[in-house]
């Protein structure tokens, strides 16, 4: 087939079958917009299939450590957005035709020394000012709340609304939901060109040309390269990070566990496995360029995990993996119409993309379908970086 043949014509075309693309397509299709998704691989094959599945609210002093006060204040202002995202997850759990293993037992961020306790106190004050339900728990309270935490841990901040979902099932659930609502999917079709045409956009793939009135770029770590095809610069930076899974264990860790100053996220998922992450550096293999785990990160990541949850020493690691992560300059997602390019929309995240994915998809779908916005999109416009 010649790639110039028009193989599909659709009102809205979403590039990317990860959680952003599938959520956007899911809501678009449910709003009655004719929708198609195109992806170079499978549903959830990129970061959406590699991420930890945390449903996350608390600010991380670790990732704020080198930021200036204005940056932190602006980022903290997105906390209500995170809260809205968690509410949408709850709604989705009822809507989707599959169990996405959502569970929100609360999140615990631990402090091992007085300095870290101070960091957490300041963080809790900031979070509470933005309406987050979060509190400090002292050592005794922590032992009662989370007896699996090491006795040397001094205190923790506790946010009762945080939790987790199965990232792999959630993206498939959204894709299936989008299909059920009438969206089409073209997988294994890498987008090679994007050009404007009279009615909107023309997207080139090896399987042929797709014409659309509105185009959404929601392709995770490929988004910057795809936007460049349309002549748009997205200010994204990239890292590859890794995750570790243990064998299934009988339930003993209830919460999402983080650390005030070290890289750590840790939780026990529905199947019993403990997933250990926290943004540890991975690499790309020198031969094929695929994300690849590195040994030092495995050792260091596990050392932190077993220091905080000593019982993990007896568990075996059975899997590790690495995946791409993207970052925006201000830590907020980039959502909505690109003013300089009519009929072009973007939906890309910063880290914490899983938590925000469905809400970001909803907002972009609302903008395309010209429905009232559930949340003000203005703080997330691409133009904030260009003006």
């Amino acid at each position, binding site marked *: 087939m010649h790639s110039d043949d028009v193989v599909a014509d659709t009102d809205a075309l979403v590039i990317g079958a990860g959680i952003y693309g599938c959520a956007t397509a899911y809501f678009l299709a449910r709003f009655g917009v004719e929708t198609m998704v195109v992806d170079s691989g499978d549903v959830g094959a990129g970061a959406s*299939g590699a991420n930890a599945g945390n449903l996350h609210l608390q600010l991380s002093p670790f990732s704020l450590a080198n930021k200036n006060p204005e940056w932190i204040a602006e980022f903290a202002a997105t906390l209500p957005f995170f809260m809205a995202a968690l509410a949408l997850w709850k709604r989705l759990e009822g809507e989707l035709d599959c169990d996405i293993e959502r569970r929100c037992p609360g999140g615990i961020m631990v402090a091992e020394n007085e300095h870290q306790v101070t960091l957490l106190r300041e963080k809790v004050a900031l979070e509470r000012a933005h309406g987050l339900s979060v509190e400090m728990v002292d050592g005794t309270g922590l032992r009662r709340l989370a007896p699996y935490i090491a006795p040397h841990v001094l205190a923790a901040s506790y946010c009762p609304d945080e939790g987790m979902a199965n990232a792999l099932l959630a993206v498939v659930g959204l894709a299936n939901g989008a299909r059920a609502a009438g969206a089409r999917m073209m997988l294994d079709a890498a987008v090679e060109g994007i050009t404007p045409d009279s009615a909107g956009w023309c997207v080139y793939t090896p399987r042929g040309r797709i014409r659309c009135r509105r185009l959404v770029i929601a392709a995770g770590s490929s988004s910057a390269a795809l936007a460049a095809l349309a002549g748009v610069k997205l200010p994204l930076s990239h890292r590859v990070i890794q995750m570790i899974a243990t064998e299934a264990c009988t339930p*003993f860790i209830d919460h999402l566990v983080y650390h005030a100053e070290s890289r750590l996220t840790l939780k026990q998922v529905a199947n019993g496995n403990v997933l250990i992450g926290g943004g540890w550096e991975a690499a790309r293999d020198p031969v094929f360029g695929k994300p690849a785990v590195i040994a030092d990160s495995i050792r260091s990541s596990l050392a932190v995990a077993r220091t905080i949850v000593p019982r993990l*020493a007896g568990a075996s690691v059975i899997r590790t993996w690495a995946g791409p992560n993207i970052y925006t300059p201000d830590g907020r997602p980039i959502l909505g119409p690109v003013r300089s390019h009519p009929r072009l929309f973007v939906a890309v995240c910063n880290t914490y993309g899983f938590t925000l994915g469905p809400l970001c998809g909803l907002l972009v779908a609302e903008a395309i379908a010209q429905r009232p916005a559930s949340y003000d999109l203005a703080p997330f416009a691409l133009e904030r970086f260009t003006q």
Partner: protein
Amino acid sequence: MTNSVALRVDDSALRAGPRVAFTFDGAPLHGLQGETIAAALAVAGIAALGARRDGTQRGLWCGMGVCQECIVTVDGMPSRRACMTLIAAGMAVTTQGYAVSLPEPSARSTFSTPAVQQPQLLVVGAGPAGLAAARAAALCGVKVTVIDERAAPGGQYFKQVAKSHNVVAAERLDAQVRAGRDLIAEVERLGVTVLREATLWGAFGVKEIAVAIDGVQHVFAPDRLLVAPGVYERGVPVPGWTLPGYMTTGAAQTLLRAYRVLPGRRVLVAGNGPLNLQFAAELVAAGVDVVAVVDAAAAPRMRDIAWLLRAATSAPGLICDGLRYRARLRRAGVPLIHSSAVIAAHGEVRVDACTVARIDAAGRPIEGRSRRYAVDTVCVGYGFLPSNEIPRALGCRHAVHDGRGTLSTLVDGDGLSSVAGTYVIGDVVALAGAHAARCQGTITGYAVARSLGQPLPASVAREQRDARRALSRHLAFQRALWHLFAAPALDLQFATTETIVCRCEGVTRADIDHALASGATTSGAVKRRTRAGMGRCQGRYCAPLVTAMLPAAADSPRDELSGLAPRAPVKPIRIGDLA
């Protein structure tokens, strides 16, 4: 009558060592010091070692540390492989479920980054290929370290009798064991460091090979790396194939050869290829009631004579062995059933019967041509898959070589792969048997020495020439042999919708069909949707089956990047051992 057969085999070449007491789920038992938990339990008639994710009991399956199904809790420490862990006096062995109970944490030793060791040559795998390479390199003065996961070097072919037995009359050991014994002794005499019970858990680069030995971390940064991990047996799912007592021929043969323990009293051996014949003959010699040997290949016919002669001229000794096995089976009245396969195993907690059916040219069972056999053990050997996770992790180039998506590491005549300094040899590259692997080992060992600038002894040229000549003879033999055993490619012909395909995670054929129907087009997509391949064995058994189920899309390439990614850990590793 059959119940009177003791499960320990007497052997005039050996004397059993001291007995030790241990417990299994609280029940007092005895075993021999130096044998594995699996061997000691087999003697006690215990096959069921614990329930897994789907709730069914599992037992010994691969018997060589690959499948991870025989895991038990030992003195409170979960997930020890019964087939690899030696019993000790007073040991408390308990069954564990799919989700393990973690022990109370013990005091932590100080964590430090492991020291880097830099042998000139690191050999991974102490089978015929690895040992022969170590020998040749050491003869040239190369400093060699060999690591192997088992308690004794030798690999699957040169498998030595375990420490549970003392050799009192070496001349009465069979030739295969003796040859291995001699090679191991020579390698150790040459000053090669042989590290046993060494689990390679991560191959992060030629200069970063992460190994755990008895809970201690080692990192190797050798000048040259030689990977000779061999193969493991292909799984062909049938209803009931996860039942305890249904095991690979290799697992059963390890019980017999290394521990002098019988896998059962009434045994049916099935699959494809000469190993099954050899093993059935060994069982008969040990007094086991072998009810039948079933092979998917058609019975030899007149027109196969040419191939038989070709095989006989290239390796007359091996052909004689083969004829001797057949004669022994015939004398014992064991039927050899051709063009057939085990299509189901039956039983509640252990296999108590199996159904054998005639199969057509596509491997499908023929209606009305089946028969049920009462047995207590079924041994299945349907050929081998390469243990190529290490070369894949290192980024070695591979090519699909058999129309079933099986990858073969691309190497030159010296065994050098596409990754600098990394040699990959033996059956993992292309199945050719132990003799060919040994020849290749010799060739590669000298090539490594040469590449390190080591002066080569005068005898090398002749030995290398002999090895090359013998290698081509063995390869010719293998070609002829597999022509004689040519059989339909078996994968899912016998699996019903409810048959488990991914043994670790209890994923059925129907689960995978559902994922495919909902749009999954790659093994990765099936894994993310169903958990097939997420388990402890890392998809070693189910990944080829899932690949066979994928839609044959012309534009999805089947190369080293398709299938499941080769990630650490190569084998599960305890967090307490790492950090």
